[in-house]
């Protein structure tokens, strides 16, 4: 064969690593993560004290590193005293990350690649759902063990999962349908309020909503109903946006949705029956990690099915050229209405989960800031992509938590990062990428 036609030799450490990890399927990585969290259970505390860290790093050592950096920044800006001995924490946190996460993950994932591929191939003989359930179960146990180590991890994980569902539901409208909808925090508010109305009104004693109507053990089994109720009410609210969208597109729809957000917020602020601007508190603690994980996994699955279905393709057709779509027998009205109501439904469900994670809900939670946050997640991760929304929501949430020690400076670092992403990748990190469940859960075939 001619020299020039031969495949280029892999050079550089990254492409070599890429080659090395190409045959590792999702299951292999799950084995790797499982090893990490078990490993951390055993050596986490001990290793932290050996490395001289005050306590076990909670978020992969990121918070520890930024805490030290924040100390330096406050020394530079305000002249506050800075304990230079804490500088050791940076290499210590990095070492911790290497020993506890990176090394076991890569070693186990690579070592079990063949085994994992074999299992995944064996599972292919069964329906996809079996393989998916087994791998999701493994994923859940990893998250469970990881989150068990501290309350902070648990709440961060819960909020991140809720953010994933919320971001994905907005991506249906902003990414797949190509409208700039600003109303999503409004849908979330409706979902949060309505599911709280359901749970607090029926099953809890509350100053605003009165005594519990029902008291029986196992009332938490009605939580799916509460979420469903919240989601359905949110999708009813979406009709207010969906119907004008028949005639209007682009900026005017953006304004209509923005006006809708203001109206919803103002409505809840003025509804004294729902607690006015103080909102509702005392939701029962039903948003446990398994509940959230199952709901979010189910939501991601449903949304993925929706966007890859004929209806999802119709959404893309409406985005790219409405007239042409209409000519190609796409029922644009039905498509738009379905997309808005479907997106709003999942936003409402996310709102219901959020209200029960935080165990309070008030109108101030659903402001322009929330809108900016979720838009940032969608556009950072990537439009028109389930992967993108997951990546965007997880990375912005984690970044927000990791940068927390920087306090106010966090709100300069995150926007700057987003501006850079927008300049260099205007559609987001992972845009327009199909999320093929069969490929994700299946084995990685080697050539």
């Amino acid at each position, binding site marked *: 064969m001619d020299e020039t036609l031969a495949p280029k030799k892999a050079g550089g450490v990254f492409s070599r690593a890429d080659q090395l990890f190409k045959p590792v399927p999702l299951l292999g990585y799950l084995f790797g993560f499982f090893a990490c969290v078990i490993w951390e259970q055993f050596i986490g505390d001990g290793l932290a004290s050996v490395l001289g860290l005050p306590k076990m790093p909670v978020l992969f050592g990121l918070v520890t590193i930024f805490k030290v950096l924040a100390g330096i920044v406050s020394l530079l800006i305000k002249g506050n005293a800075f304990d230079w001995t804490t500088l050791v924490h940076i290499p210590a946190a990095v070492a911790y990350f290497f020993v506890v996460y990176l090394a076991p993950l890569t070693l186990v994932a690579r070592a079990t690649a063949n085994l994992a591929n074999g299992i995944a191939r064996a599972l292919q003989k069964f329906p996809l759902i079996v393989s998916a359930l087994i791998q999701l179960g493994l994923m859940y146990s990893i998250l469970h063990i990881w989150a068990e180590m501290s309350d902070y991890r648990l709440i961060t994980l819960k909020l991140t999962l809720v953010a994933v569902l919320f971001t994905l539901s907005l991506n249906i409208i902003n990414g797949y349908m190509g409208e700039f909808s600003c109303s999503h925090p409004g849908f979330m508010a409706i979902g949060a309020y309505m599911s709280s109305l359901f749970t607090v009104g029926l099953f809890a004693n509350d100053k605003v909503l009165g005594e519990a109507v029902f008291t029986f053990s196992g009332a938490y089994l009605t939580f799916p109903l509460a979420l469903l109720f919240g989601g359905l009410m949110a999708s009813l609210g979406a009709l207010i946006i969906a119907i004008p969208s028949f005639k209007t597109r*682009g900026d005017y729809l953006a304004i209509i949705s923005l006006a809708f957000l203001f109206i919803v917020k*103002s409505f809840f602020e*003025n509804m004294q029956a729902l607690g006015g601007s103080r909102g509702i508190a005392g939701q029962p603690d039903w948003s446990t990690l398994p509940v959230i994980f199952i709901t979010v996994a189910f939501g991601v699955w449903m949304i993925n099915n929706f966007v890859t279905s004929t209806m999802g393709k119709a959404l893309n057709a409406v985005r790219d050229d409405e007239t042409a779509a209409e000519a190609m027998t796409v029922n644009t009205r039905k498509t738009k209405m379905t997309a808005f109501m479907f997106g709003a439904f999942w936003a409402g469900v996310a709102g219901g989960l959020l209200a029960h994670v935080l165990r309070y809900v008030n109108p101030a939670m659903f402001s322009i800031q929330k809108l900016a946050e979720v838009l940032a997640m969608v556009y950072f991760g990537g439009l028109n992509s389930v992967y993108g929304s997951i990546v965007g929501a997880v990375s912005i949430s984690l970044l927000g938590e990791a940068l927390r020690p920087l306090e106010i400076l966090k709100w300069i670092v995150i926007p700057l990062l987003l501006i850079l992403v927008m300049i260099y990748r205007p559609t987001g990190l992972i845009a327009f990428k199909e999320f093929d469940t069969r490929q994700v859960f299946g084995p990685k075939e080697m050539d």
Partner: protein
Amino acid sequence: MTLQFLMQNLVNALQWGSFYALIALGYSMVYSILMLFNFAHGDIFMVGAYIGLGVATGLLALFGTGASAILPGWVLLVFTILISMFLTAFVGIIVERVGYRPLRDAPRASAAITGLMIGIILETGNILFLGGQRLKFPQLIESVTYNIGGVYVTNKKIMIVLVSLSLMLALHQLITRSKWGMAMRAMAYDYVVVPLVGVPLNRIAAMTFAIGSALAAAAGILFGLAYPVLDPYMGVSFGWKAFVAAILGGRGSIMGACIAGFMLGFIEIMTVPAIQIVNRLFSLNIGSNLRDLIAYSIVLIILIFRPHGLFGQAYSAKLRL
């Protein structure tokens, strides 16, 4: 419920509407040329108000206050407005250079995100440098109240309305009479072809941002005179409402933005007496803090029936989404 009461509210609405109109102009001008909304504009209004505060404090320190004043207050006010407009124009130019020029061919939503993020950076920067507490705007002119047939009008209100109207008129002259204005109008007509015949797109875009920001700064100073407490988040609610006004007027329509700005002011101010009248007529007890809800419902209804705003035209060209 007397006529005086309504007239009093009308005067307040005129003042309130002039803030909206001045800010909405900035949105509308940028939109008409670049087909983008500058979501940082509300925060530029905030920056303008703070720059005005700095300039006014500086001028007062230089030229004295009260009896020892070298120059009368209104001269200082004119200088404050002019200097702050000039300085804030540069903020606008920087925002355009950093956040919008690199994204001119990107999807419009990406530019919206950078705008939002620049807004957050401006707010945070303010908190970082000024500590986040509310600051008091120095009173450059003495407040005098006139009683015209039972309606109380302060000299500040008259001045605010007059200054904003004259700024709008000046803008109108600039756009319709000058060569730069002609270039802007041409660019608004077609910003792909017009640069091909030698109109400098970058310079015109920067100038549009500069003019819009200068108007926002004027609005900020006038706001500071009327409501002399500034806080870093004042631009958020104000900016979004002015954005609504800009859309309501019809995107890219300068005249529409002015009229819709005043209209939004009227709707917001007038809902309170309207609710009182309704309450009295039907002996109801509706809270007057339903203002936002009613104002935005009216906006929503207007947009449902006039989807392109009051003075906007339906674009036949495909939008870059």
